[in-house]
């Protein structure tokens, strides 16, 4: 173990790390945004009266949950190319991860919706709410409140999964780490710093989710 640690070259390239952190956070946030929207749509389709919607939703969820993210990423990347559409890798990653996250969030939000009792919905209707109001205030918001811990866990997972973006050349934190260790030969120092950054980011997301939970769903804490 005669290894001498040397962090100077890492400190000199702090700008690289910062840009990597920003890209990683952007990816995680966009993934969550797309995922939540798709998750709500998927969960509603799963419970709908239309048979086709139910079948399409559950088939999509099974395919998304039972194939690796890496394979899905390549299929989006090459598939979009095969169709002749020119999409930059960054947006390809956002779409692939957003859709994948949507598959997982569909299952989570569905569990929340199924926990809402029919009496509650009837209560909303008898208060004179419109269909959309019932959906928004009586179904979706309490449903997400019930499953919020699982949703925030999914947020951490989407941060960790966003590291795959480097495989098709998006310059996120992992990409910068690999780039830097290849240029400085300081692989251990680079990886230790990046590992610490990732742990801080995931802890920060957990804390942020708890804050959001208390702010958005105050009624749970009365």
């Amino acid at each position, binding site marked *: 173990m005669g290894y001498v640690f040397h962090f100077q070259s890492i400190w000199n390239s702090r700008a690289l790390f910062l840009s990597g952190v920003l890209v990683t956070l952007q990816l995680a946030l966009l993934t969550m945004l797309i995922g939540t929207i798709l998750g709500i749509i998927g969960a509603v389709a799963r419970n709908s009266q239309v048979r086709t919607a139910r079948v399409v939703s559950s088939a999509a969820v099974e395919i998304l949950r*039972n194939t690796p993210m*890496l*394979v899905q990423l390549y299929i989006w990347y*090459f598939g979009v190319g095969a169709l002749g559409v020119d999409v930059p890798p960054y947006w390809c990653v956002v779409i692939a991860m957003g859709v994948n996250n949507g598959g997982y969030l569909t299952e989570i939000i569905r569990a929340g919706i199924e926990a809402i009792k029919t009496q509650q919905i009837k209560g909303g209707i008898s208060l004179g709410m419109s269909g959309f109001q019932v959906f928004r205030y009586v179904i979706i918001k309490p449903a997400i409140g019930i499953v919020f811990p699982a949703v925030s866990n999914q947020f951490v997972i989407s941060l960790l999964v966003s*590291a795959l973006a480097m495989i098709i050349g998006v310059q996120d934190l992992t990409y910068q780490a690999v780039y830097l260790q290849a240029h400085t030969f300081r692989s251990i120092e680079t990886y230790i710093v990046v590992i610490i950054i990732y742990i801080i980011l*995931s802890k920060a997301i957990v804390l942020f989710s708890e804050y959001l939970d208390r702010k958005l769903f105050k009624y749970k804490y009365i």
Partner: protein
Amino acid sequence: MEFADITRWLFRLTPYDILLLLKGALVTIALSAGAIGLGSVFGAVVGWIRSLHIIKRVRPLWWLTSIYVDTVRGTPLLLQVYFVYYAIPTLTGIDTSVFTAGIATLALFQGGYVSEAVRTGLEAIDRTQWWAGHSMGMTYIQTLRYIVLPQAIRIIIPPFIGICLGIIKDTSLVSTIGFIELSFRAKSIGTRTLETLPPWLFAAGLYFVICYPISRWSQRIEAHLKSKG
């Protein structure tokens, strides 16, 4: 393109390529089995140690296990693969092959998640159960074996199967350091034939064939455990 053209294009893989992909799928299954076996045993031990009451008073040991669990659960697997393959040899001078690095990383990853599942399962059992066992004259091992574990196992099994499914899908990541399994085969066929999409679609199908039965089975087990109570 006509529909027939699309299907013809999708099945442009030669029988030889399909054989390569199937061989890759076998490697993926073997790799997942190895990682799940090693990782589950290691994770169960770590989780059991972390559930002991003494451990929270011996701070250094608690911190050591916490560093392990938090690092595994708080960093991307891709980064862990790179760390074990590129950084560990420089640090220790041990020359790790792709095979050892791949299996070791996946097993450590599995272990970190399993340890938390085991710990929460054991901690969910009320302390009065332990007291009941001891007051009946049972030893520690007997209480664990006959009273606590049968109850804890029903809490542990659903997340455990989820973790195993995750590791089967995550074996695709060790292809980035050159482990020749399903994803690596798909990638190399794509590079050789310049038809990148068909091998990846075929690989996705194979992954689905491996994972879907397990996920259905886990749903049935979960329903079974719930109905019992």
